[in-house]
């Protein structure tokens, strides 16, 4: 009997990453811009998606992949009512979406008829960012009532995204939230992170978010 050390040096989630690349190629082939939206439950993922659909639906063809831990179709029903294509993915209790679930979701969408795909990830601030889905952009929604300490408490999440939406800014007069403390934490972990402060309710700041998406869509054409 011989013993041997075998060097691996491979990402633990490499199987997921490989499938994510396949999804990315498929989306690129169809010229689709895609966003993976992550946040804790209640930060406003569905609200932002519905508001974005409402503003863009006349000029942009939108599909949504809804991830939920249970077989509820509340969000998908609202998206369809709002004027977009929607696919519901039930993660069966799993706390995040992975690239195989997105592959299944993409198979159910009419890709040749879409410009923009938004993925609503499972409400969770711990692990979704570790699982690449193959989207163009990974976005995180933080919201004022969650508190200004979240970058410090969930560094992995703030490291693993490209865009940050700071939602519910209309609540600032009522909730203690130190902008400097929050933004310093963001800068520390992810200096290139683009930040969009907005309110889905009052629509303050929505313009910048929508213009940014339009700019990204133009790059894809």
């Amino acid at each position, binding site marked *: *009997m*011989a*013993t*041997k*050390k*075998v*060097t*691996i*040096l*491979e*990402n*633990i*989630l*490499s*199987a*997921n990453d490989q499938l994510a690349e396949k999804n990315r190629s498929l989306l690129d082939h169809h010229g689709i811009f895609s966003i993976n939206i992550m946040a804790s439950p209640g930060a406003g993922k569905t609200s932002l998606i519905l508001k974005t659909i409402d503003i863009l639906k006349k000029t942009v063809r939108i599909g949504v992949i809804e991830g939920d831990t249970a077989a509820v179709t509340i969000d998908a029903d609202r998206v369809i009512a709002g004027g977009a294509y929607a696919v519901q993915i039930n993660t069966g*209790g*799993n*706390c*995040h979406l*992975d690239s195989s679930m997105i592959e299944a979701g993409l198979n159910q969408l009419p890709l040749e008829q879409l410009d923009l795909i938004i993925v609503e990830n499972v409400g969770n601030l*711990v*692990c979704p960012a*570790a*699982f690449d889905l193959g989207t163009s952009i990974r976005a995180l929604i933080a919201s004022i009532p969650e508190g200004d300490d979240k*970058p*410090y408490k*969930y*560094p*992995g999440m703030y*490291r693993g995204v490209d865009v940050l939406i700071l939602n519910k800014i209309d609540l600032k007069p009522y909730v203690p939230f130190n902008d400097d403390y929050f933004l*310093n*934490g963001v*800068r*520390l*972990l992810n*200096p290139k992170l683009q930040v969009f402060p907005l309110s889905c309710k009052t629509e303050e700041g929505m313009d910048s978010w929508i213009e940014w998406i339009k700019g990204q869509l133009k790059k894809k054409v």
Partner: protein
Amino acid sequence: MHELSVTENILKITLEYAEKEKATKVTDIYLNIGQLSSIVDDSVKFYWDLIAKDTICESAKLTFNRIPARMSCKSCQNEYNLGPEPGPCPVCGSYDVLVISGDEFQMDSINIEK
């Protein structure tokens, strides 16, 4: 809950490499985990006992090499390790820093018998 999918991936990669080497047993598995990656060691070990049962990895010992989050200050070039709560450069107080390490989430190596 994501520890289950993580553990399944660890087993899959281990078996893949062990089979290539025609191993009869895997004795050790070494993982490189950065401070900025979220994973609970005990939870992985708990799932490991369940899913590695009846495989050549059944009795393998999992070792987590924890890699600290190392930062480099862009203002004064000081390098420092992040504490449990991420903070600015302890020398000049700047928040303009770069993460040099701490994102690792990697299978390092395995020890096998054959």
